[in-house]
């Protein structure tokens, strides 16, 4: 290392000019430069640049595709939500309809039953009224008989002669009030 440095130093000192202007090295530099540039150009234009360009294009493409897929998925989700909401609304209206129908049925049944029950009650009430009338009539007859008997007994007990016809007429008159 030390020896080469000294050597170069002495060279530089002996040359006494810029190495850049040493024309004897020009053919050498230009030759190796051209070799390097040609190799580099072939390497880049044949291998490296198409490859990197391809990767960049592929990445761009896949990003675009991913974005499109995401958009589609979003659209699908929106559609699904709309379908769900539709189904929900349909189910709701269906349920409402069923409820209304059931209500109407019940109402109808109720009305029919009420009518039937009313009729039965009316019949029962009529029967009861007849029975009551009979009993009342029976009771009035019985009272008239008892009153006639009692009146006849009273009359005979008081020493009178009970006249059946007169007593019956009197009692009947009395009973009529």
């Amino acid at each position, binding site marked *: 290392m*030390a020896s080469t*440095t*000294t050597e*170069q*130093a002495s*060279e*530089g*000192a002996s040359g006494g000019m*810029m*190495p*850049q*202007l*040493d024309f*004897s*090295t*020009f*053919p*050498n*530099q*230009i*030759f*190796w*430069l*051209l070799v*390097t*540039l040609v*190799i*580099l*150009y072939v*390497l*880049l*234009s044949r*291998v*490296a*640049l198409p*490859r*990197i*360009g*391809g*990767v*960049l294009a*592929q*990445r761009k493409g*896949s990003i675009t595709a991913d974005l499109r897929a995401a958009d589609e998925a979003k659209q699908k989700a929106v559609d699904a939500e709309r379908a769900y909401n539709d189904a929900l609304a349909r189910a709701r209206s269906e349920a409402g309809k069923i409820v209304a129908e059931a209500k109407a049925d019940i109402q109808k049944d109720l009305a029919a039953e009420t009518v039937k029950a009313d009729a039965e009650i009316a019949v029962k009430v009529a029967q009861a009224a007849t029975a009551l009338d009979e009993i009342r009539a029976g009771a009035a007859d019985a009272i008239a008989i008892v009153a006639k008997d009692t009146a006849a007994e009273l009359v005979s007990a008081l020493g009178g002669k009970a006249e059946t016809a007169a007593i019956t007429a009197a009692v009947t008159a009395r009973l009529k009030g």
Partner: protein
Amino acid sequence: MAETAHSEGGLVFHPLDQFQIHPLFGDGPISWYTPTNATLWMALALLAITLVFVVGSSARALIPTRMQSVGEIMYSFIHNMVEDVAGHDGARYFPMIMTLFLFILFVNFLGLLPGSFTPTSHIAVTAVLGFGVFIFVTLLGLYKHGLGFLGLFWMKDAPLILRPIIAVIELISYFVRPVSHSIRLAGNIMAGHAVIKVFAAFAPIILISWIGVIVTPVSILAITAIYALEVLVAGIQAYVFTILTCVYLKDALHPGH
């Protein structure tokens, strides 16, 4: 090292020695095919580019590894630059421009390694790049537009009297392009490296004189600062060279102003 320093009267000032080209094997004369240190560092740049762009991207991963990511970022960066500056039909020349950019970038950065050699600090290399671009672009313009390419120098929106004058100026500036294009790159790289070397030569002064107590830390700080600047310059010069190539390409493809 110390021996040399004393023999030169204390300090070694050979900031240009780092640009010396010497054969890799032996010590003979340099003929056109001799492998030299320039060859070595160009080959290393080629190897580094291969590692990043060929090996790094070999998995073709949809989710890239770090190395593949670096390659993809550079690819997109230059591809967008070509499309923005040279237009959509400039994308055909993207591999060529990518080759230029990566070569300059990697050679510049590898040249920042201590003890390395920077081929882009040599005018022979940058002149081939600059004039190569110039000749390619000029031939492309003439091929695509024939004599219409000369419309590049004829300003249609300038006053008629001024047009010939402007045409002469434009013509001169057109032919200066490759010169400035190549000297800008070589000059920047060479100047930065030489300045670092000058400060580096001041650094061991503490071994010789008491004044080194001040000079040595200052020069080490200066090396650090210049080095940081050089890292920036290495990237920026590669970028500038590439974007100017795109601009020249645009002129060839669309000569109308």
